């Protein structure tokens, strides 16, 4: 099972410069995959989720084409060979 996590540009510095991280381990949910990502690159975790474990307000996480907000959050089940995207939200214009 190969899960690929896509890292946004500003956070590549916290993933050894990588824009994508391949997880070749068996996982069943988005949450399990992200926990492995956080273990490997701790600097990513605090920048993507809050200390209460919620996805930051202006970040979206997609499993394939689906925003996990609408598919069960961290419990979203994963199929094999899928990409998990961490993407800054479209949220500008006020400052």
């Amino acid at each position: 099972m190969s899960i690929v996590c896509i890292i946004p540009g500003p956070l590549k510095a916290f993933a050894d410069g990588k824009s994508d991280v391949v997880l070749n381990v068996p996982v069943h949910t988005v949450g399990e995959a992200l926990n492995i990502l956080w273990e490997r690159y701790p600097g990513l975790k605090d920048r993507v989720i809050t200390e209460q474990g919620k996805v930051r307000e202006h970040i979206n996480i997609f499993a394939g084409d689906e925003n996990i907000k609408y598919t069960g959050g961290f419990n979203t089940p994963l199929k094999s060979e899928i990409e998990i995207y961490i993407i800054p939200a479209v949220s500008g214009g006020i400052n």
Partner: protein
Amino acid sequence: MQTSGQISPRTGNVLLMIGTMKGVFLLSSNSTRSRWKVSGPHFTGQVVYALAYDGRAGKQRIWASPQSWFYGTVLAHSDDFGSNWSVPETANVKFPEDTGLSLKQIWQIEPGRDDEPDVLYCGVEPASLFKSTDAGETWSLVRGLHDHPHRPRWEPGGGGLCLHTILLHPTDRNKMYVAISTGGVYKTDDGGSTWRAVNKGVSAEFLPDKYPEFGQCVHKVAMHTSQPDRLFLQNHGGLFRSFNGGESWESMANGVPSDFGFPIVSHPHEPDTFYIVPLDYEMRCVPEAKLRVYRTQDAGKTWKPLTRGLPQKRAYETILRDSMTADQLDPAGIYFGTRSGKIYGSANNGNSWKLILDDLPPVTCVKAAVVGGEIQTKKSTSKKKTGTKRATKKPARATRKGK
């Protein structure tokens, strides 16, 4: 916007640190304060509400609180005036899980007393106080304040529910004050274990009870370290002073065009001298579009406008709570920044002003420090120690800690 320039202030030079909605700018000048070198922006595109200079125990460290719109906020520091920044791998200021809270913004960074050089405090949103006892490596929530029974009834002001003022009694380690918008002023007499509201006489015009125990929208509080039981407060409507360590307050809005405003700043050497910038209550700009700093030299009995060098027409300027500061020289340098991106400075106690820098992003914070060494004051032959000699170690640092 590209990063440009570096500054290398020498001992006795003035360091001016400017936080904006889009990053940090660092300026330095010699003691004449007539020409400034500029570097920045640092933390491009990030909001910085809090900056501090820590010159204790041989350090020459700048602290900053860059906040990414997307990725949260951390406390970063530089030991070489911004050439390199040490950004923590993982967030260094976090709420414990049991609080159910998440950090939104760091509003204030306050180095501890001179004789406790590893102690720092920071005030955050949602309103809480954090303390470090290892020079900023790790931070802990001050539970005594967090667990205060008033906390669930504090309400956010327009800027958010923030703890924006931290005042340390200079000699009594047990005593300190914080101010919260909106919550009011809180005081501890036991080093932070317990806190009590000290707002008697401070108004809250937006509540049915105009003088409640707490809930005031205090914008900023200032203290002169030589008279630490005297506090001076710019309220959301009202100017107040206390001569008994906050136990009671009285109005000092004598002769100002508006009692609304954000900053209040102490003169570094004159304990009766303070500076404010009144704002029109409705428009939140300087009244009559005249940019006037008001100064009292008699502890609030009278206030007089300072206008020389400041625009007196069509100046629709707003100055936020941490956007005004003073350096430690004599005569004192007074500085402020505007929401329209201008930095004004005075090298003569506010008697006259010059535009130092223009066209910055909206200014959120202005802090000043004199770098290292000893400073000869004009009025005294005594020398004032302000911090440190320049470091002799190699300045090169990793830009990111933990790797």
